[in-house]
């Protein structure tokens, strides 16, 4: 059992150890979908939802696996679980919000290979969080991912209008921006124990 309080876990995943800017998880969508603010917002909602579903389910699966001594199957079952919850989100979106479904396009199935989601499941297992702590952790991680990607999208929208040298093509510029964002997030580093 982990003695950390719920609010601390949330804040830690949200700001101090931000999943994108401090732990380098989920960089592909961070670079890929951060060109427009509203797409970035929708993407972060979808990701946060998948994170929440897969985190709660993986807590249950982990209990079952540990009781049968099958820990070596953990990785395979987590990834299968994430793939199926992405499928679920896809179906729900297609039914209730076709416009959003089209806007996200290829990036929706790619949530499966977003390492932030598998990261949440793996970290909560290795840190021994109980059920409520896992929920708080996944919510914090989802919010942190959203914060980072929306900030990034805002910055990139501003830069669209500025005059830049040719060699700073999309990726190089994004990396530099991310570096600066990450530097600012280091200001939160003293708030708690880093783990």
């Amino acid at each position, binding site marked *: 059992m982990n003695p950390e309080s719920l609010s601390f876990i949330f804040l830690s995943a949200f700001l101090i150890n931000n999943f994108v800017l401090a732990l380098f998880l989920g960089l592909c969508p961070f670079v890929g979908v951060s060109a427009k603010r509203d797409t970035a917002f929708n993407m972060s909602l979808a990701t946060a939802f998948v994170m929440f579903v897969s985190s709660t389910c993986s807590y249950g699966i982990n209990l079952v696996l540990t009781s049968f001594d099958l820990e070596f199957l953990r990785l395979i079952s987590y990834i299968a679980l994430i793939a199926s919850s992405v499928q679920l989100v896809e179906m729900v979106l297609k039914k209730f919000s076709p416009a959003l479904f089209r806007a996200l396009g290829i990036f929706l199935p790619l949530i499966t290979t977003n390492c932030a989601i598998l990261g949440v499941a793996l970290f909560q297992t290795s840190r021994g969080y109980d059920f409520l702590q896992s929920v708080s952790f996944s919510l914090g991680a989802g919010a942190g991912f959203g914060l980072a990607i929306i900030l990034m999208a805002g910055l990139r929208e501003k830069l669209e209008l500025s005059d830049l040298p040719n060699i700073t093509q999309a990726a190089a510029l994004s*990396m*530099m921006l991310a570096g600066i964002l990450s530097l600012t997030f280091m200001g939160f580093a003293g708030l708690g124990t880093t783990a």
Partner: protein
Amino acid sequence: MAKANKKETPLTMDVFTTGIWKENPVFVMMLGLCPVLAVTNSVENSLAMGAASIFVLVCSNALISALRNFIPKQVRITTYIIIIATFVTLVDYIIQAISLDLYNKLGAFIQLIVVNCLILGRAEAYASKNSFTKTVISALGMGLGFTLALVMLGGVRELLGAGQLLGYQVFSTNFEPWVVMILPPGGFIVLGSWLLLINYIEERRAGKIIDENEESVHATATQN
């Protein structure tokens, strides 16, 4: 699926070398960035991560290529993921057995190789369409390119962040380490700088005039 062999291109050196430079997975295709930034705070970690990735990439792509005519199209992504996850579990236990110290340093990033888009991307784009030998050779090239990128990043970050290379002191003890290079922002900034440098070289090679302002800056820089 059986028609995949129809337009098989001959096996050339290119199959191997494109992955290393021309289509370098990190610098050109921007795939698999998470481990690239997370574990490259020293050369040792970079090499270990590179070796683990090469193993998973080659083995999983070889198996997928061998089975490509048997995997139903509808469930192929799931099948690929399961195959990859199996090899990652293997690597995870192997590294744990070889060096527990290294395992603790790399942490969850060994297991996160599963979701490295490079491996799934190659499986989908290459292994599912090409013959066994070609897939293995191409996967080796890609893996080496990936490792090269990891080491390029790890080298710069370790040199500037700790004044060491592979644990050996390079600069004298008077050198004040740039701690920020080992911390997360350093990863982004070093990768960004490499990308800028590569873009610059490519521009020069293509013989384009970059920009009049840029040009004058470079001109003054060379004069000094």
